[in-house]
């Protein structure tokens, strides 16, 4: 058991931190929602009602979509784009899909290679892009969820302001949708840019995301 925890501590700790943050967001969001309700002379809602509301759902999904977009772009663009000196980049002569030998697929697969890396055809093609495709699919689903829960939350506000609700199609053209979307995109893209550039010159001893402390600033594609 202890060995399992140690060997999977990265995934487990981040999973638990995610749940703790989500629960914290639910409590803070519930308090904020009820504060607004009281301000408008309305009744506070129960915690259960809030966590099943469009308001909570849109606040959650607008952040999810941007995170998955970030990883989707990062996974796909790092196939082709390079950054000299960054451990986030591949070595400068390895831009592109790389050879079957480098990727251990088909005839170059080893005994421990996953089954779909050994076979050819559609299965190998799918498995070769599965990480990016799944991240991209989760991004699209989260963004769709944001738009659906967003229009419901927006319409609740519209009715509270004694204004007409809008359709989903109209909501996609509303500033509210794009403001929620782009404010998350910009922060994720800034974080990625910071990581790519700062990791050229800065180090974190022992971290898989950093070059070794003594590695040259020009060393590319080297992780500690």
């Amino acid at each position, binding site marked *: 058991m202890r060995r399992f925890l140690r060997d999977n501590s990265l995934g487990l700790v981040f999973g638990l931190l995610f749940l703790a943050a989500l629960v914290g967001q639910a409590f803070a969001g519930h308090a904020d929602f009820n504060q607004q*309700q009281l301000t*408008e*002379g*309305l*009744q506070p*809602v129960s915690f259960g009602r809030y966590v099943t*509301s*469009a*308001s909570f759902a849109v606040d959650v999904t607008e952040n999810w979509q941007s995170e998955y977009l970030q990883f989707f772009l990062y996974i796909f663009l790092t196939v082709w784009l390079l950054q000299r000196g960054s451990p986030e980049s591949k070595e400068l002569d390895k831009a592109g899909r790389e050879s079957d030998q480098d990727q251990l697929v088909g005839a170059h697969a080893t005994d421990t290679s996953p089954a779909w890396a050994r076979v050819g055809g559609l299965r190998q093609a799918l498995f070769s892009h599965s990480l990016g495709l799944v991240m991209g699919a989760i991004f699209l689903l989260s963004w769709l969820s944001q738009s659906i829960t967003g229009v*419901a*939350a927006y*319409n*609740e506000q*519209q*009715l*509270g*302001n*004694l*204004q*007409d*609700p809008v359709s989903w199609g109209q909501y996609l053209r509303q500033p509210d949708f794009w403001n929620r979307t782009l404010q998350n995109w910009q922060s994720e893209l800034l974080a990625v840019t910071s990581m790519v550039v700062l990791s050229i010159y800065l180090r974190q001893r022992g971290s898989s995301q950093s070059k070794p402390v003594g590695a040259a600033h020009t060393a590319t594609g080297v992780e500690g």
Partner: protein
Amino acid sequence: MRVAVAPVGTVLAVLALTGCGAVTDRADAAGDVAVRMLSAVAEKDGAGACALLAPDSAAEIEQSADQPCAEAILEEDLPAPGTVSASDVYGQWAQVRVGGDTVFLAVFPGGWRVVAAGCHSRGERPYDCAIQGG
């Protein structure tokens, strides 16, 4: 894998149907309260109409007319009750179109209560209402 997908699909379908059912029920309930309030005014039952108003809306009527809600509401320019032609519910709010009127309602402990009635559209701007809270 197919075995797992079927129950998930069923659960999602049931959730979607019950969710739609719940929304329809809430929309019907909001429409019912709007019609009851307008009917009470038409029948000169001021107390009955005020009982269906949101607290802030009833207080606003009393304050602006300087008389009890049950009397003041009968002097407001509210249309006769008609059939509900549309009822939209989003979270704690509902918009009901009844006869030629548009009524806005919100959820309170006793159920839906009328926040604004006798409302006329002003395009992008908020509706202009004969009675409204706040």
